[in-house]
């Protein structure tokens, strides 16, 4: 078990090194000169001398060869210094500190909600197979998978924002500043973000429960006269959860990917929007640091998922 965990972490770090290489070198291919963009955002862009540009390149380390830039960046990341944003001259760590919080709050709420509700709906649908609940859950999970996230956002905005005027259309307030407002502003983003993982979880849970339901030990449980509640909660759900847990690793990725679109629509100052704006601003340092952090979270989440298998199902042994 310990060797397995260590091996998973070593592979995880290897994967992150590969991710950093992909990100770093693909970004060097981006058209546009970051030094010029910096000048444009700071001075106004006109009448800049070559000396000034060179100075800026030295300041941000852009004058060195690309492999050296890579090594410097890695050195910085390890020591906790992520560099400085070319666009607004702030340290990336400070920028991320501001932007991480809305994404984290909305993302966590969406992930927990989609997992809990997905497991619940999938279980109910499978146990009452063929009933109207089953039809409804199956239908809704299809809707969740085929409807584009922005369409869902448009529908919600149109209904609850424009027509009924129940919820604020855009914006973000931290929950500790004004809890009521924060909840109101987060309802639509959470729905948009949680729908896809919810649909996938419910579908997986449903088919997983249907499979467990056919097992001999479930028939034994019925034949020895156990109550339905005991069979469903103790025997069926426990054994159906393993494939669903795998989805939580995928869910983390879906949440970060979804945040890009969700935060753009609802004007939430989170990592997703920062990502999009940095790509348009050619802000290398920000993009590469943010991608690395997202990748690290996803890789770590998948390691946790893999390790939790053994805890959930003692039959699984790690070689």
């Amino acid at each position, binding site marked *: 078990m310990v060797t397995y965990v260590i091996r998973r972490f070593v*592979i995880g770090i*290897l*994967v*992150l090194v*590969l*991710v950093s290489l*992909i*990100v770093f070198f*693909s*970004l060097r*291919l*981006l*058209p546009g000169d970051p030094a010029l963009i910096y000048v444009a955002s700071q001075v106004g862009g006109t009448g800049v001398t070559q000396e000034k540009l060179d100075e800026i390149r030295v300041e941000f380390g852009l004058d060195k060869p690309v492999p050296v830039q890579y090594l410097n960046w890695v050195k910085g990341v390890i020591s906790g210094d992520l560099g400085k944003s070319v666009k607004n001259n702030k340290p990336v760590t400070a920028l991320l500190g501001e932007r991480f919080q809305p994404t984290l709050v909305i993302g966590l709420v969406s992930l927990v909600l989609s997992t809990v509700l997905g497991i619940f709906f999938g279980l109910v649908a499978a146990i009452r197979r063929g009933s109207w609940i089953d039809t409804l859950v199956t239908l809704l999970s*299809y809707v969740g*998978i*085929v*409807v*584009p*996230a*922005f*369409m869902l956002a*448009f*529908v919600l*905005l*149109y209904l609850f924002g*424009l027509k009924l005027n129940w919820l604020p259309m855009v914006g973000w307030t931290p929950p500790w500043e004004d809890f009521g407002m924060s909840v109101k502003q987060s309802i639509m983003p959470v729905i948009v973000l949680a729908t896809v993982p919810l649909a996938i979880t419910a579908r997986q849970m*449903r*088919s997983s429960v*249907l*499979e467990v339901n056919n097992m001999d030990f479930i028939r034994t449980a019925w034949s020895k006269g156990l109550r339905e509640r005991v069979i469903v909660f103790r025997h069926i759900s426990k054994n159906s959860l393993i494939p669903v847990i795998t989805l939580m690793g995928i869910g983390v*990725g*879906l949440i*970060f*990917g*979804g945040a*890009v*679109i969700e935060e*753009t629509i609802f004007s939430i100052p989170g990592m997703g929007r920062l*990502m*999009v704006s940095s*790509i*348009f601003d050619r802000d290398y340092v920000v*993009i590469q640091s943010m*991608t690395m952090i*997202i*990748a690290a979270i*996803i*890789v770590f989440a998948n390691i946790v998922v893999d390790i939790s298998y053994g805890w959930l199902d003692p039959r699984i042994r790690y070689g």
Partner: protein
Amino acid sequence: MDEVFVIGEPETLVAPAVSDWRRFLKILFQRKLVVVGTFVLVCLVLVAIFAPLIAPYDPVKIDMGHTLQSSSGTHLLGTDNLGRDVFSRLVYGSRTALIVGLGTVAFSAVIGIILGILAGFLGGWINAVIMRIMDALMGFPMMVLALLLAAVMGAGMKNIIIALGIATLPGYTRLMCAATLSVRENEYILAQRAIGAKSLRTMVRHVLPNAIQPMIVLITTMLGNIVLAEAGLSFLGIGVNPSTTAAWGSMAVGGFRFLGEHPLLSFAPCIAIAVVVFAFNMLGDGLRDALDPRLRGKL
């Protein structure tokens, strides 16, 4: 499943080789939704091919004299803020969706199948290298990776296809690798080795045809996902150029500002996307059942 035990059904007792194909079609179209999905996709292809005949207007022609009109006899679904006919844009948008979808899937499925077979059949360090690269690609959320690549390469249909293709590559590679690993254990592969066949020949002639089945299902479902992802990229402003090409994603975004008074501008392309994605998913489900009934409810 009860029919299996019915005695005296001539169709099930006399089973000529030809009926394989008929059986496949019978299971495929057993469910009404699969029929609906297939019908939608056939319509989509026809609309895309005959777009110039169906669309009443030029989809990219700006007409500032007739902006933001509601649906009427002359403009079936109205016009957008630049006076372009929404219905014509929807019709031409089907071309973009199909080209991006098919192009991306062709790109990533071919590369994924090759990498997957190599990794699964040869194993060792080749497997390790290919799979670690796929792990690295999966370390990004698909949308973030596609966004990054599309930004690096610039907008345009070809670059979108490559970006989405690379972002979806790990799925194909991993599935193909897993399928290859299970096919490799068969005795006919051992027999190939015994008679001294080259690895390449064994891979192409024996592993590929036997491991390709699950890929067909994945490809069909992926086509839907690509249509969704392309719309997402267009939404973020990194899609095909909206002034020269009509695409559903950019239409939806363009109409966003007018959601209050002209909801159709955004909702019409969104509905088109949802219907097409639904159709691909349905066909994928049907194909899965028809190719391998044991997989029902999985994948």
